[in-house]
């Protein structure tokens, strides 16, 4: 292939990964390159395949929850919640009011923590080190809140079928409010660091544009879909739990490039803290768990339930045979699975350095892809 008539060039193959720092896990790209331009990119996955779905088929429903924590470990709360929601729909269980509020508080705090990881690692991938430290500093406060609630910092096993495992300690609410008070100023710091930064703008603006039709066709969801200009958020459009009681906005992008995805996630952190604040103010007292037997058998049936995770639509499909305490089939659907699928289309024709920017801005996480 020749780029100019005078210059003869040849295509060559580059193997990127599986242990490349910018792939956020173990993902391999086989790149066909023409100089620095990506002609074709083929993702290879499966390095983190742990057969979670098969393991779940051999466990009772409550025993599945710790496995679900490992499905997408940046937002373990969401995974637990998605599974509990599906099981509760299947069995007709209603969690108490207070439990629902605690769940929303944890889910939104977890979303902020996940976006902070994204913020830090993305900037690190693109050569900025300070945002990484800033992001992890604030995430630490959220992890402290989780730790004082359930003793864990990464895989919580907190949300249970029919409620949550334990109530928040008395010092949780003042601590959470303290965090919410100082967090907006921190976001302003992030924005000051990056928004107008010339290097950041050149690396992100008009890079990795994802047109809206392609986004829909590939099942792209969450912040990436909204950055492409489609106002769709499951919290608003297919409401679950008690999200219809809170006042929050759904930001959307215009261009659908990496920069839009960055701006959108920053705005989502602001909106999530609004939800947490409202939930803390409205938090009722009362029970935190409906009694569910460890050996309970949901009636025969099947359900696909989906929630809005920080990486897009997280769906759990469960089929119950009716006479067994183990599910017949559990299928986990994560947003990254479809995001990685669309990547070859949008990195085609760009520079190899843009592939790193695109992968970072899509917020792909490999355990969710491989399961």
């Amino acid at each position, binding site marked *: 292939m020749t780029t100019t008539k005078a210059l003869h060039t040849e295509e060559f193959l580059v193997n990127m990964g599986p242990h490349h720092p910018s792939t956020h896990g173990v993902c391999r790209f086989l790149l066909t390159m023409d100089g620095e331009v990506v002609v074709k990119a083929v993702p290879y996955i499966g390095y983190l395949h742990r057969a979670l779905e*098969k393991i779940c088929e051999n466990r009772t429903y409550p025993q599945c929850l710790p496995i679900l924590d490992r499905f997408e470990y940046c937002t373990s709360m969401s995974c637990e919640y998605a599974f509990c929601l599906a099981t509760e729909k299947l069995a007709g269980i209603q969690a108490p009011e207070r439990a629902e509020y605690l769940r929303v508080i944890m889910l939104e705090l977890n979303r902020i923590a996940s976006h902070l990881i994204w913020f830090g690692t993305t900037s690190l991938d693109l050569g900025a080190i300070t945002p990484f430290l800033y992001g992890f500093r604030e995430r630490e406060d959220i992890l402290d809140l989780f730790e004082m609630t359930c003793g864990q910092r990464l895989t919580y096993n907190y949300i249970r079928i029919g409620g949550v495992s334990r109530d928040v300690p008395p010092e949780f609410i003042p601590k959470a409010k303290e965090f919410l008070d100082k967090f907006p100023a921190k976001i302003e710091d992030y924005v000051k660091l990056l928004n107008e930064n010339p290097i950041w703008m050149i690396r992100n603006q008009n890079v990795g544009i994802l047109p809206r039709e392609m986004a829909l066709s590939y099942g792209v969801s969450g912040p990436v879909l909204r950055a492409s200009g489609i106002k769709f958020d499951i919290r608003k459009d297919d409401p679950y739990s008690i999200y219809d009681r809170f006042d929050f906005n759904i930001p959307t992008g215009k261009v659908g490039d990496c920069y839009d995805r960055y701006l959108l996630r920053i705005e989502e952190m602001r909106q999530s803290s609004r939800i947490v604040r409202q939930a803390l103010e409205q938090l009722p007292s009362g029970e935190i768990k409906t009694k569910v037997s460890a050996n309970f058998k949901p009636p025969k049936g099947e359900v696909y339930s989906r929630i809005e995770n920080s990486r897009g639509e997280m769906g759990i499909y469960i089929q119950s045979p009716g006479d067994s305490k183990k599910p017949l089939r559990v299928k986990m659907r994560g947003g990254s699975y479809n995001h990685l699928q669309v990547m070859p289309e949008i990195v085609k024709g760009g520079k190899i350095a843009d592939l790193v920017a695109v992968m970072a801005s899509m917020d792909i996480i490999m355990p969710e892809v491989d399961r």
Partner: protein
Amino acid sequence: MDRTELTKYLLDRFSDKLQLLDTGKAEPVFILKAENLLEFCRTIKADDTLAIDFLCNIAAVDTGDLFEIVYSVASTKNRIRFDFKITMPYENAEIDSIQEFWAGANWHEREVWELFGINIRNHGNLTRFLLPDDWNQGFPMRKNWDAPDFVRMPEL
């Protein structure tokens, strides 16, 4: 459109092709015949009332004596979400690819092929990706699959 309206609309529209499964309060699940799959997908995508533009998930299920493939679809415009499934016998299980309607079906179908051994017609890229390249131990998500190093949880 709420659950009852949606069910009625779909059953009216596809009276001879769809059959409703009783699933309680959750979103409706329909049973569809394999030969109607492509036409059904084409219609629900083009229909303005439904405008199904989003494929959420494809899940294959091994019930022990037959395979089921469950398609979860949604609309981002009309607040619609429902599932439909296709059942097929164990022997020579085969299904058409629906990539022409939703390109994202590619990996979901590839996974169905790899883990269950259900052939996907007109897929174009049926290669291993979750299992090792030299995998020769059959289809691990089938119920009758067992491996020497596979440990089952003790019964409670």
